[in-house]
């Protein structure tokens, strides 16, 4: 065996091991105990795969322009991502996942672009199938890239309004048609026409922007998860183009896992994926179907609320996005400690879509040091609410709205909710009297056993702590 063959064998073996370790690492992530080990070995595999790639025949091991650019690009991309990932606050995690995911999609599209530009310059085609897959990967990657960028801008607050052009869906349909036609020309072109490639990519990017623009912030996690799955698929397709098994396997695994995750999220919100993508939530339905609300909102002072909780046996805390915004998780942990010192059992109830992503609340509570065996999801905690003396709802709204159970006309009807209303007493910490993200009035706030504690989440819990301490 010559040196080249040894090198080729080494590359193949490394890619094989990498693919195995990725799957094993993801498997390890299915338990909180082994999760960290899983990502670390996956990281080592990624490093090994990147290094061995210098040994593939397409890369010349000499200091030519390609190599210089490669080293600069590696250093630049890694450094920027490393610094930004280290600096970002935990509450801003969803948009960081969006942006890194978009980068992956962009990279997949760019790989396709290099191959297609090569073909338009008279490069040798590797067959129709490869060309078609390159084009498919290019569309999916471009949409994921542009869409993730918009998702990032929205969650980061750079793009505040939900833009909806007249005939928006028709424009999207038109863009999609143009992508299909130019994509077909590029995929079957022999030779490939350069101008088509350019139009194809520009329209694919525009489509990604236009698809994401009308989607509201509440639906963003589902969309980010969808783009994550799409990027995986794009990577897999480009893996076929480059004949790279590691890319095919890793990309496909992410593609299918991401699809499942997306479905789980959409299901938790009781919405179909099509519904998320093609209709904006609460904009036209809902208001007309509102039924009359009986009762009124009753305010409570922090002092009384503190007494209520301090002398309770069971307290269930229901955190929502408002808690994340107010960064109240550390205060909550402090209050939990005080209550437990008084013999109160404290549990946390997490709705699947509380916050901006499934598990977002868990991450924030974990950051504050809340043990994960005190955190329960919907199915586990719902039977316990009738036994709870106090349910403390902090910054959550739609996920505790009993309308989802009672009013078939409500847009959120049928969505599984946390039965906080069944607790003996409900304390709602809320900034003001407005409706929730979906714009639906929350009947829980008007219930007889509900008391409203107005104020910023962190401040309100701070006052509760101060009052509990004085008891």
């Amino acid at each position, binding site marked *: 065996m010559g040196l080249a063959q040894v090198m080729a064998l080494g590359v193949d073996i490394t890619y094989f091991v990498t693919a195995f370790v990725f799957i094993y690492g993801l498997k390890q992530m299915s*338990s909180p105990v082994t999760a960290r080990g899983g990502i670390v070995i996956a990281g080592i595999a990624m490093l090994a795969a*990147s290094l061995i790639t210098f040994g593939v025949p397409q890369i010349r091991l000499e200091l030519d322009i390609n190599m210089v*650019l490669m080293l600069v690009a*590696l250093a630049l991309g890694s450094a920027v991502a490393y610094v930004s990932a280290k600096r970002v606050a935990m509450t801003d995690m969803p948009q960081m*996942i969006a*942006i890194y995911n978009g980068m*992956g999609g962009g*990279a997949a599209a*760019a790989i396709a672009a290099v191959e297609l530009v090569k073909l338009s310059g008279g490069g040798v085609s590797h067959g129709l199938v490869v060309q078609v897959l390159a084009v498919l990967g290019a569309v999916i990657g471009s949409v994921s890239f542009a869409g993730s960028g918009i998702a990032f801008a929205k969650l980061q607050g750079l793009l505040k309004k939900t833009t909806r052009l007249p005939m928006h869906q028709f424009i999207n349909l038109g863009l999609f048609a143009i992508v299909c036609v130019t994509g077909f020309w590029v995929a079957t072109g022999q030779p490939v026409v350069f101008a088509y490639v350019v139009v194809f990519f520009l329209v694919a990017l525009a489509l990604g922007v236009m698809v994401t623009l009308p989607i509201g912030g509440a639906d963003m996690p589902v969309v980010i998860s969808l783009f994550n799955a799409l990027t995986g698929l794009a990577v897999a397709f480009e893996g076929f183009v480059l004949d790279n098994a590691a890319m095919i396997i890793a990309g496909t695994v992410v593609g299918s896992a991401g699809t499942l995750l997306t479905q789980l999220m959409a299901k938790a919100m009781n919405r179909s994926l099509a519904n998320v993508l093609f209709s904006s939530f609460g904009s036209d339905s809902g208001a007309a179907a509102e039924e009359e609300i009986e009762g009124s909102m009753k305010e409570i002072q922090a002092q009384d609320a503190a007494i209520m909780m301090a002398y309770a046996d069971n307290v269930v805390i229901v955190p929502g996005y408002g808690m994340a915004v107010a960064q109240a998780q550390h205060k909550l942990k402090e209050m939990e400690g005080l209550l437990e010192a008084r013999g109160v059992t404290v549990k946390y109830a997490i709705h699947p879509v509380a916050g901006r992503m499934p598990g977002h609340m868990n991450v924030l509570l974990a950051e504050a040091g809340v043990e994960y065996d005190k955190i329960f999801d919907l199915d586990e905690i719902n039977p316990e609410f009738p036994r709870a003396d106090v349910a403390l709802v902090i910054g959550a709204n739609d996920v505790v709205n009993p309308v989802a159970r009672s009013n078939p006309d409500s847009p959120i009807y049928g969505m599984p909710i946390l039965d906080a209303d069944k607790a003996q007493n409900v304390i709602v910490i809320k900034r003001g009297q407005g409706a929730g993200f979906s714009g639906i009035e929350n009947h829980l706030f008007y219930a007889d056993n509900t008391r409203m504690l107005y104020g910023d989440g962190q401040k309100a819990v701070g006052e509760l702590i101060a009052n509990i301490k004085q008891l």
Partner: protein
Amino acid sequence: MIEAQPEFAGFTALYIFMLAAFTGYEVISRVPVILHTPLMSGSNFVHGIVLVGAMIALGHAEGPLELTIGFFAVVLAAGNAVGGYVVTVRMLEMFKSSKGAK
């Protein structure tokens, strides 16, 4: 080495695709909700393997246009891999304290 028949190689790739799709589905279906966000982040890191493809694309790029696109491919892919890794590790690090207590 024996050169594989093109049709066979294509089908092998299809088999890999199918099996990997099932694998991904199975791996995720047993994950508790509390790990969904770290897991999305983790799978986001895994498709950072696109870096390998980006490096190959830039490696055999010719002419200024291909080189420019290839350069961006590697920058973006490196960002995906490194950013995805750091964010995931940061999230999972928070589960460590409670692990020690158990």
